[in-house]
């Protein structure tokens, strides 16, 4: 499966630089975020791959790196029983990436959660609201600069 994936991807996208990382029997695929939509569509639709199940989307905040955030997509192929981790880098100044909720509907809430927790905006997302925190909340709690004990007065109290 791993060889098939490498062969198909490099055969179909000769212009995109793919980086394959193998760790703990898991395959990670890294590439530039501009190609995210086309590659994800290919991974879902291509015969023999069929990554039709989006398990999870999250981000990692590296705090001091140049590309501050890494977006992590865990997708699963029900046909081949194979899990793939897709990664794209996002810079803090730009802080936005194209949404994949048009490819997998399950990505809708997962992206809302990433937006809530890290402040990364998803372009063309149908309903980009905060997932857990109240709408008036200004911060993004899972960023490393947000203190563990919270910021006093950051969560507004309900109106009497």
């Amino acid at each position, binding site marked *: 499966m791993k060889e098939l994936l490498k062969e198909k991807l490099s055969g179909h996208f000769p212009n995109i630089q793919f980086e394959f990382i193998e*760790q703990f029997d898991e395959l990670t695929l890294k590439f530039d975020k501009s190609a995210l939509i086309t590659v994800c569509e290919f991974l879902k639709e291509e015969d023999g791959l069929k990554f039709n199940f989006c*398990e*999870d989307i999250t981000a990692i*905040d590296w705090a001091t790196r140049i590309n501050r955030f890494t977006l992590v997509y865990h997708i699963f192929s029900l046909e081949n029983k194979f*899990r793939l981790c897709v990664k794209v880098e996002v810079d803090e100044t730009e802080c936005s990436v194209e949404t994949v909720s048009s490819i997998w509907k399950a990505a809708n809430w997962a992206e809302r959660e990433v937006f809530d927790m890290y402040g990364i905006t998803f372009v063309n997302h149908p309903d980009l609201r905060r997932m*857990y925190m109240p*709408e008036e909340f200004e911060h993004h709690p*899972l960023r490393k600069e947000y203190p*563990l004990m919270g910021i006093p007065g950051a969560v507004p109290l309900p109106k009497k």
Partner: protein
Amino acid sequence: MQKLTKDDVHPKIVQALLGADVHITIDDALENEMILNMGPQHPATHGVLRLLLRLDGETVIACVPELGYLHRGYEKMAENMSYMEFIPHTDRLDYISPPANNVAYALAVEKLAGITAPPRAQYIRMLLAELARMCSHLVAIGALAMDVGALTVFLWGLREREKIMDFFDVICGARFTTSYTRIGGVASDVTSDTMKNIIAFVDQFEEKFDEMERLLNGNRIFIERLEGVGVISKEDAIDLGFTGPNIRASGVEFDLRRATPYLFYNEMDFKIPVYTEGDCLARYFVRSDELRESVKIIRQVIDKIPNGEVMLNSPKKVLPRKTEIYTKMEELIHDFMIVNFGINPPVGEVYHAVENPKGELGFYIVSKGEGHPWKMKIRSPSFANLQAIPHLVKGHMISDVVAIVGSIDPIMGEADK
């Protein structure tokens, strides 16, 4: 439930409600649209789930779930505590089946640290996970029946669950918040007496569960309230990220115990119940079939369980025994280092998912080689399952919303993290 005016609801939620694409034609509903607030304090929403419903007469035409009323920030907390310290917090994710969460977390950390628990510990983990599955499904079936008006099943289910809780008490020392697994094994051994008692329990359980099932399967009101309600197709179920009994009720044979085997599940003989209808009734049938399969697994586990240690002997990663800490210098040093600085797994990241009673529970852990994780993400099944609610309730009555939420079986503790 209360009727709301537009000023009471946040403008973005109103926008989401009114902007939802409505492709329903209603013939005999009243020409009377309103927005209704269901929850977070509503007995049928299973915790603190808030649903905002846009109604035409009594028909739901759009629904927006609001989460976050139980958000405790576990992912942030995990970044600031050692791997060991997070185990009690996993109890509070899916609080109906705490041992299953403990097992999922321990497996993820062990994969990251590159250690494997001894076989006996893994068998005990399987035993506990299956008992937890029974616990969870008994509550799920009971609560679903209670929501549609059959209270007796709930009480009978809790009676059986109480017996399982007593086993947790004997094995783990706590009925509810078990915190039973350790990194590299389990906290204490299960005695042969306890195993005999568990066998005695499952022997009488099947008979008791037959009684419960007769109450439901012969109950015309129960069947008619659920049959054909909240139907989700196979494609939509995959697309929306359904897992667990919910996806298997839609005709997808997806069970992580078989798809990506962990522990010793590949040596166990059990069936994966699959129904193709995709309605609330099918979701109930999957759960009741799984209860019987869990009984089968428990019998095999107790039959096959090997003798041996329950904790791995790996001093740099695994806490030593208390008696050894008090008598031996080496163990005292290791204990001090592990408790104060953590187990320091190598740099890397791991995603490990297991089949929990509610669905796929995954832990994604990023390590920088320190005592605490750099990042931890919890992929909770209830969160993904809840996402389908707007899709499922569209076009149904308010009373069906209650049945649909009950059949999805969300636990807000893990949906809100």
